[in-house]
């Protein structure tokens, strides 16, 4: 990982198409501005981790699907 030290107002450019600027520094909070092509998805890391964890918790094993089928069949949205 590349670690750079920046002051407020300074920027970092990645691949000539992504710019990261330190917008402000207040105490332990840093406001970061990011410009990137629209196709680039930018997320706070904890959101990604939350979805990864949720996906992992959602996994069902096919052996339990047989019983699952019975439970799911008899359920309607008002249950």
């Amino acid at each position: 990982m590349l670690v750079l030290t920046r002051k407020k107002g300074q920027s970092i450019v990645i691949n000539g198409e992504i710019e990261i600027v330190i917008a402000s520094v207040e105490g332990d909070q840093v406001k970061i501005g990011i410009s990137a092509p629209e196709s680039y998805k930018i997320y706070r890391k904890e959101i990604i981790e939350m979805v990864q964890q949720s996906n992992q918790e959602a996994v069902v094993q096919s052996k339990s699907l047989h019983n699952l089928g019975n439970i799911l069949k008899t359920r309607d949205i008002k249950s």
Partner: protein
Amino acid sequence: MFNNLHGQTFHFNGSVLAFEALNEFVLESVGEDSPFAVLQSQEDANIGFVVASPFTFFKDFAFELDEHDKEELGLTEQHDALILGFITLQDPFQQSTMNLVAPLVINISNSKGKQIVLPPKYEYSTKTPLFHHGLDKGGTE
């Protein structure tokens, strides 16, 4: 509910977070009257996900697909889009939840699918209870 898509393979191309090695999933309908289906991995027999359409349980659920995602999925017609949410089963079943932060978007005309993580302006949760919540105002208890 998903009988007409039963047995169809969808290509997720590693877009399911934490399961980037998995690409092909078969949709297995649970039954004509059931709102649920299972997305069964074709690459790992031990991995499947219970899914349902979020709109079945959450009448106010809505989001916009951005142009990049539409392009990636080759989506040109609204009616080709199938939206599903991963369900986390709980015991008892009534406490089961759906991930509304990262729905699955499938283009049924070309079988491409993608898990899309919604931007923060949508204040949804990964653990939205399926039952007994306030997102279907007007329903009877």
